């Protein structure tokens, strides 16, 4: 459970930083009225939707941290046999990176008001994300063809479970991306479009980060990395 504890420490860091700006040491019964200081203590300047997405991503991060924790706990048992990762996953990783880059471009374009570039970026991002999902399915097929079935051992089960869960999140993201893309073609409200594109980019970057972590975990690098850290500490 160490991974989730570390993750929660990060969250606690954010929470602590935020709380430290809320005047927890002040004596509210002495402070009447509405002075300048108070306005600064009010809401964050960020758009509400972004904060909402941020909180949601914390929950998603928590989910994957828990999967990772469970993975490590099971991995510690001596009979652990990881399955060989198909080469295809490297290609998929590249495709997902492209998808993120395309959305980043769309964000920049949206800020500059270049609607054509926004459309191009969104379409590219959507297609590459779809390609990633298809690639993941092909990787699954390759593995089952080689005899690595879901139920044959716990390492396999974890592989299918974690990659499947990540794929579902991408799929959910595609729904949001689809709506944003539709909005880009209508181009009714540029302010709103900019926000949606930014939200999509945020979600995409986060899922890319999750994928890289998952990839490192499944390839066994994460475990090696932790071993090295442990040796350095002791």
């Amino acid at each position: 459970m160490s991974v989730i504890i570390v993750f929660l420490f990060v969250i606690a860091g954010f929470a602590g930083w935020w709380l430290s700006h809320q005047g927890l040491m002040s004596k509210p019964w002495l402070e009447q009225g509405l002075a300048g200081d108070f306005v600064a203590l009010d809401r964050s300047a960020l758009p509400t939707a972004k904060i909402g997405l941020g909180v949601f991503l914390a929950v998603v991060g928590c989910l994957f941290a828990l999967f990772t924790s469970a993975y490590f706990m099971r991995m510690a048992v001596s009979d652990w046999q990881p399955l060989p990762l198909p080469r295809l996953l490297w290609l998929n990783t590249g495709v997902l990176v492209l998808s993120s880059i395309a959305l980043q471009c769309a964000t920049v374009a949206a800020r500059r008001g270049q609607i054509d570039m926004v459309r191009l970026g969104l379409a590219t991002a959507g297609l590459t994300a779809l390609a990633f999902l298809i690639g993941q399915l092909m990787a699954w097929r390759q593995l089952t063809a080689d005899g690595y079935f879901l139920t044959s051992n716990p390492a396999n089960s974890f592989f299918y479970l974690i990659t499947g869960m990540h794929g579902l999140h991408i799929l959910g993201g595609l729904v949001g991306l689809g709506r944003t893309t539709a909005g880009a073609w209508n181009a009714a409200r540029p302010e709103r479009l900019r926000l949606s594109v930014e939200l999509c980019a945020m979600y995409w970057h986060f899922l890319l980060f999750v994928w890289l972590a998952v990839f490192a975990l499944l390839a066994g690098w994460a475990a090696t990395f932790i071993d090295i850290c442990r040796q350095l500490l002791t």
Partner: protein
Amino acid sequence: MVDITPADGIPPAEVAEVELYHPHSWWTRYVFSQDAKVIAIQYSATATGIGLVALVLSWLMRLQLGFPGTFDFITPEAYYQFITMHGMIMVIYLLTALFLGGFGNYLIPLMVGARDMVFPYVNMLSYWIYLLAVLVLVSSFFAPGGPTGAGWTLYPPQAIMSGTPGGQDWGIILMLSSLILFIIGFTMGGLNYVVTVLQGRTRGMTMMRLPLTVWGIFTATVMALLAFPALFVACVMMLLDRVLGTSFFMPAISEMGEQLQHNGGSPILFQHLFWFFGHPEVYIVALPAFGIVSDLISTHARKNIFGYRMMVWAIVGIGALSFVVWAHHMYVSGMHPYFGFFFATTTLIIAIPTAIKVYNWVLTLWRGDIHLTIPMLFALAFIVTFVNGGLTGLFLGNVVVDVPLSDTMFVVAHFHMVMGVAPILVVFGAIYHWYPKVTGRMLNEMLGRFHFWVTFLGAYLIFFPMHYLGLMGVPRRYAELTDMTVMTESAHHLNSFISIMAFIVGFAQMVFLFNLIWSIRHGREAGGNPWRATTLEWQTPQTPPAHGNFGKDLPIVYRWAYDYSVPGAKEDFIPQNMPGSFGPSREPA
């Protein structure tokens, strides 16, 4: 002293981003409504409905325990199904949904001075997914093989094996699916509660001016958002084990002379995941209760809550600490024994902020002007039961004392006292307190007092003696207490007594329900602020609050939530949105 009034040129506090949703038809106004107040009532009604089912189940269990052998239809199989559904419904589908979905939805926007939640559409979806989760849960009663009988902890391997009711039938599948749905639905609602507190606060409403109710619900929601994923992970993995035959939690097993296909899984892994959710869950239920009871005591004792800052720190501290105590549910689970030292220490440390909260509640009473209204009575009863249940927690948290007591009736008595009776008493107190705001009418006083006395004394008489059954060594989750040396003749009598009290207490809840329905039409007119309270929900122009809560302009907040009996002020309360400076030694800001 400087008087600051709206005339100073402060613009009305409007949240530009939030576009208020407007219902167009009866359907969108009352059924598929995006108004947090309607959603709150939908949540509360659904939770109460399913809670009644759980109440009936508890009666059936008490029939079997109190009068063994008399009721043939309660087979061990049925008993375990009752006990599982009772526990799961009460903890998750009633208490969590009621405190966060019900009270959270109703009170957060009103108390922070917002027109609605920040994402009303998602908020509506949250309720409908919750309803779907409840329906899936209920459907398991009608599925072949009936609901699961694995106990509310759903420990594998037995939860998905044929020796457990519903283990190889539909019961466990429906239970896990329902939990997954609940978590998805809750996450949608939870995002709303958190972000509304962060971003929806009106002008002048700093975090340190929030009523403790909002602090409690806010912290509990943050915890729930981080804890429920653990249950989600556990449920998904167990569902795969059951449906697709994976072995996450299933080691090699020889069941009744037959080797199962599973191999290599870890049952302890499930317990870690479950309690990583399960312990914060206790505080997810308790923290809103802490917050609400603080406000009840302060309002009805006409005195500011004693040590507001300490109360806030304690809520945040308890919330954070509750994530590092989960394994105290696993002292005798066979995990590494050295974990016991760590988790016993963290568990007993959490007693300190909790004790501070109790001190501050009783110190708020000191030199107060205590109105013994029904909400106040329930608040006092909460302190008694919570202190009792909290102190027995010191037995169970102290690892070695837990060894003889774990899995006995002592545990049952402890958690019912501390997270069953105590929070439910707060729920009742809160309903008597806010019902006038929701409906515009008071609940009937006489029925209320009857309900209070029977519930409080009855519940205490049920659960206080039950501890002693556990001390004798009577295990929990026994469908039959026969042929046991620890069950003496007198212990059987005690069990019968407990069962009779359980029926009486359950009956009193019917009186309460009658009161709830009867008073909608026939209750005394309440007016806008019957308790003369300071917080914003009592300052709305209409009662019940209309759509948009606060009329044309949002209120501006000039003071904290607890300006009761301020020296120098004419009334013994100053609403949060009243400008001006009062008090002998207070610096104007």
